[in-house]
């Protein structure tokens, strides 16, 4: 029983990952994966596992990634197929946190990501407002962006890049975007992590655009009271939720997500494929 409150079992979790495999694999394939494991369920202790467990079967792919902090390489698990995904699930890796880059080109992110995290009493509703502003901002720059729920309290907005770019460019860019949003609406937006600044505001977290950071994968379960999933949504769903002031419109559990994918396919598919280029701001400064 991994979600004791609602009686969602480990078997059901493994079943979910087995069935969502086709949708999730394009988004995690070839990326170093950090596992967030809950061996005794969501209410008990968890741990992050970067180093792929030694007892792994020999068909599980790994990628050696240099870690500055440990002065050495860490062999990350890489999830390229359904079998590996199921193996990870049976380790009670409820949450999958892949890198924003592929292991072969670890310094090159394939997306620009914003994690919109509400500080109470702000909720996912405020996140909707900011997500829509991000869409508008990127739209004005000629770039498409895609929203997903975090599966927890917030929303994440991904701007697919899939072109030659480095964190050295995406991170400052993301920061500039967050700062601009903050300056345009300082009562609602904060771009700095400090907890005391976040009350009633939305943290536009730009700092995950970093080689050493990870963001929860689309279609990953979350260790919340209910088996909610980080779910890709359509922009009009964000607008509708905001209009109706109904946060439940943006909360999806494992079963619902499987149905959504069956009905509408993978809404996040473009994130893995669409090639877009960030404007060169430094050029613009000169």
């Amino acid at each position: 029983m991994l979600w004791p409150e609602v009686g969602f079992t480990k078997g059901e979790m493994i079943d979910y990952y087995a069935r969502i495999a086709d949708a999730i694999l394009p988004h995690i394939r070839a990326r170093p994966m950090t596992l967030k494991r809950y061996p005794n369920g969501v209410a008990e202790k968890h741990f992050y596992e970067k180093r792929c467990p030694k007892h792994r079967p020999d068909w599980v792919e790994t990628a050696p990634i240099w870690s500055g902090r440990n002065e050495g390489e860490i062999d990350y698990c890489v999830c390229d197929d359904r079998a590996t995904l199921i193996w990870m699930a049976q380790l009670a890796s409820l949450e999958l946190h892949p890198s924003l880059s592929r292991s072969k080109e670890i310094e090159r992110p394939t997306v620009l990501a914003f994690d919109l995290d509400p500080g109470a009493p702000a909720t996912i509703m405020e996140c909707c407002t900011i997500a829509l502003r991000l869409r508008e901002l990127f739209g004005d720059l000629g770039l498409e962006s895609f929203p997903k729920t975090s599966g927890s309290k917030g929303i994440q907005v991904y701007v697919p890049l899939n072109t030659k770019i480095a964190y050295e460019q995406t991170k400052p860019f993301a920061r500039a975007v967050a700062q601009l949003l903050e300056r345009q609406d300082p009562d609602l937006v904060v771009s700095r992590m400090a907890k005391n600044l976040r009350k009633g505001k939305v943290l536009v977290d730009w700092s995950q655009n970093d080689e050493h950071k990870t963001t929860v994968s689309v279609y990953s379960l979350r260790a919340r009271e209910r088996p909610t999933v980080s779910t890709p949504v359509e922009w009009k769903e964000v607008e509708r939720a905001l209009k109706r002031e109904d946060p439940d419109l943006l909360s999806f559990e494992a079963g619902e997500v499987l149905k959504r994918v069956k009905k509408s396919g993978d809404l996040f598919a473009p994130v893995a494929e669409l090639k877009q280029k960030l404007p060169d701001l430094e050029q613009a400064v000169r």
Partner: protein
Amino acid sequence: MPRAIWSGSISFGLLNVPVKLYSAVSRKNVSFRELREKDGSRIRHKRVAEADGEEVSYEDIVKGYEVAPEQYVVITRDELEEIDPKKTRAIEIQDFVDLDDIDPIYFDHPYYLGPDKGAEKAYALLVKAMGDAKKVAVARFVLRNREHLAAIRPADNVLTMATMRFADEVVAPGELGEDVVPEDGRKLDKREVDMAKQLIDSLTADFDPSKYHDEYREELLSLIDRKAQGKSVVEAVSEEPTPTKAPDLMAALEESLAAVRGEPLSGGDGDGAAKKPKRSTAKKSPSRSKSSQSKSRSRSKAKAAK
């Protein structure tokens, strides 16, 4: 005169011998300064906050122990001070053991202990007694707020002291797993063993430390020497460099957006407008900026409405 790095006293039983501590190693590492390639300016490191890139002064830095990624337990300086080992000046001998009992893997940094003023005789006595007993003293002492274990032994009429690693710091080969620890019962060919032994015999000699040199360092120093002679020395830019401002990406982003939205720059949403730098207002004519301001205000109102 070499400078003592610490003074205290060896104590065991009723004996108390004031001593001074000297390092037994002079580090010969070749160290480099970092320079900017194009003009040789010295590189300075700054402590900046990841969150906003702002410089953080030493007083504003606390220590955080990462219990889980991005989750820290903050430990203040006061808290650290509280658990500092008591500042004692004693090298307290715990046991006397045989040198052969200590695996060299435990030894860390070597020091000499010399007699402090007036303690010459007691010191000589200790050296002689330990030499005759052929024993090594295992002692504890506190150096720079850290508790150390050390092995003291006489050599050529002086006491040497090597700090030692604590048992739990030494990695047992078993912890490294089968990559390091060979499987048992592997059949070894007697002839091969004999051949290996023969090879060892043929290379056996008395240990002469002066025979071995750090060849890389010698090579590096000679390279530096050659370049210094040849005058290809970079003159460091030593005057206080005026910091060049990092490009303001946010302003650039704002400009780009204003350009595509067809808005003049001074437009701003809500309260933010008041905080805008004068620079951007100055670029535009007042009348245009006013109209855009009201325009974007109404826009922001529309957005804020839920």
